[in-house]
């Protein structure tokens, strides 16, 4: 194994469930490891726990420096002492998703049936529901019967929805942010470009790159570049780069010309240092497979029958990946079952990524919602 593959060597805090987990695809994962971090203190009644669910390329280091990349926690603005998800008040849990590459079982974990090998492309197809089933094991392992809240943005929001639907008695509140109840054809199409870029990289070697110590860096970088465009708005890109030139020495058809190009290339190259290509393939597929209404003949409201959680749905006005219409559709379907729903669209020109950025209105909304819920749950 290539020792430069940083994402495998670090001793992440984790727990292993040797009994494994049955997956939606019909296969069984014989043993499952969940890497996780916690912040704050679990109260005596074990009633103040909030699970944070990360997005496609996130990890469990939500509120502290990531030990592998050295970068600040990905949601340090939102989770921490005195933050909207206040770790002085709540016990916060964040786990690396099933299929991930930060210590949880995924394509880069040891193969269950082939000693010495990694799963690689043998890793079974996973779903958002599978990820949540594994998180449920962790929550039970921590001795928590009912979460106070499940909060997540983007793919994390899909997990929050999955929690509310799969385990209605195990959470008091659900907060899907910039989320959707299904992955649209456009969403899938963008993911497919990324996957094709990875397949086309000679370094991919049919998914067995790990055996020969290489990585499909170019392919994964292009996948990230494509995805990154969908995370930002046209307005934000214009504001940041406009038509600024990177190479002012003259017109060239080849090589870099515009500032936005080198920005994207930087996004791509910094990503390949920390992410496993097979993980990327497995998780994007899990997102593509997500459709809460699929078992209800397209009627989303049917999926919400029996939900008990209070909901806060937040969308961002310039998000074209998971636009406001998606959140509104979820809110309306929840109305159909008379669920307790708060829903607001936050004005922002930062696109889908706004949920990760400095958005005071969003932060005040989240804080207020959790305060209101805490009062109803008898937490304050």
């Amino acid at each position, binding site marked *: 194994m290539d020792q430069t593959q940083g994402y495998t060597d670090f001793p992440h805090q984790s727990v292993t469930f040797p009994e494994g987990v049955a997956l939606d695809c019909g296969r069984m994962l014989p043993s499952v490891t969940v890497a996780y971090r916690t912040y704050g203190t679990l109260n005596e009644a074990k009633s103040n726990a909030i699970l944070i669910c990360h997005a496609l390329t996130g990890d469990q280091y939500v509120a502290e420096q990531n030990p592998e990349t050295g970068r600040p926690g990905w949601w340090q603005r939102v989770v921490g002492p005195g933050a909207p998800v206040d770790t002085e008040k709540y016990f916060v849990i964040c786990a690396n998703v099933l299929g991930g590459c930060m210590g949880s079982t995924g394509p880069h974990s040891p193969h269950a049936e082939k000693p010495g090998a990694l799963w690689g492309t043998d890793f079974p197809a996973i779903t958002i529901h599978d990820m949540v089933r594994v998180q449920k094991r962790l929550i039970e392992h921590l001795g928590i019967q009912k979460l106070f809240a499940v909060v997540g943005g983007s793919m994390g929001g899909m997990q929050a929805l999955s929690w509310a639907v799969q385990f209605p008695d195990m959470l008091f509140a659900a907060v899907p942010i910039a989320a959707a109840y299904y992955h649209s054809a456009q969403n899938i199409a963008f993911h497919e470009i990324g996957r094709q870029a990875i397949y086309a990289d000679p370094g991919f070697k049919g998914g067995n790159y790990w055996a020969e110590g290489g990585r499909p860096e170019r392919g994964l970088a292009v996948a990230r570049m494509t995805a990154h465009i969908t995370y930002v708005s046209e307005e934000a890109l214009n504001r940041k780069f406009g038509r600024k030139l990177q190479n002012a020495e003259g017109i060239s058809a080849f090589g870099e010309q515009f500032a936005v190009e080198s920005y994207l290339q930087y996004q791509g190259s910094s990503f390949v240092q920390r992410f496993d290509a097979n993980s990327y393939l497995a998780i994007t597929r899990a997102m593509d497979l997500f459709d809460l209404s699929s078992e209800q003949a397209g009627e989303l409201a049917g999926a919400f029958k029996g939900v008990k959680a209070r909901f806060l749905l937040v969308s961002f006005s310039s998000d074209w990946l998971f636009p406001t219409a998606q959140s509104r559709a979820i809110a309306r379907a929840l*109305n*159909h079952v008379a669920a*307790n729903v708060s829903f*607001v669209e936050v004005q922002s020109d930062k696109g889908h990524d706004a949920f990760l950025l400095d958005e005071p209105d969003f932060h005040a909304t989240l804080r207020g919602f959790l*305060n209101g819920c805490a009062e109803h749950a008898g937490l304050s």
Partner: protein
Amino acid sequence: MSSAKKIRVDLALIAGMVQPRARVLDVGCADGQLVEHLIRAKQCDARGIEIDMDEVQRAIAHGLPVMQGDADTELVTYPDHAFDYVILSRTLQAVEQPREVLRQMLRISTHAIVSFPNFGHWSLRLQLLTRGRMPMTAGWNRMWYETPNIHPCTIKDFFALCDMDGYVVQDWLAADEEGRRTPWRRAPSLANLFGEQGLFLLRKA
């Protein structure tokens, strides 16, 4: 976020019509003042819908369950009998389809509480008679071409609509501009002349 605060007079009148611990939806709830009062002072399961995004944001940030939406399009998404009371305070005259909104309110709820500015008030009648222009008062203070109040009606008109659609007026009163109760209760014609607002508690026959 602790003790019950004093609320606007007209909202207090509405709250007086709601039984404790009821399931309530406040349509056009603004920053959620009435929702908060019903939750705290009456232990209701109260929620709100509001069209203005800034108001919604303020309400949620204050810990209240409020969703952004439009009365004309959102009420159809609720199931039958989901609530004990649906409240529409000073909003009926601004919706696209007042009759349909009322019908939806009494589909999803046992009771409907509706307040609206009374276009039959003497000062409006007098202005129209003497000046021949659309009246302008404290309550009707926008020019005809920009007012959001696209469906003005009088207290008498509202009685007539309830009669036509078979709604029982369980309680009603006329109020002044601030929402204080006025003494025209037993006389609809006088209320229609002197009441600045009408407030109705309806149920289906």
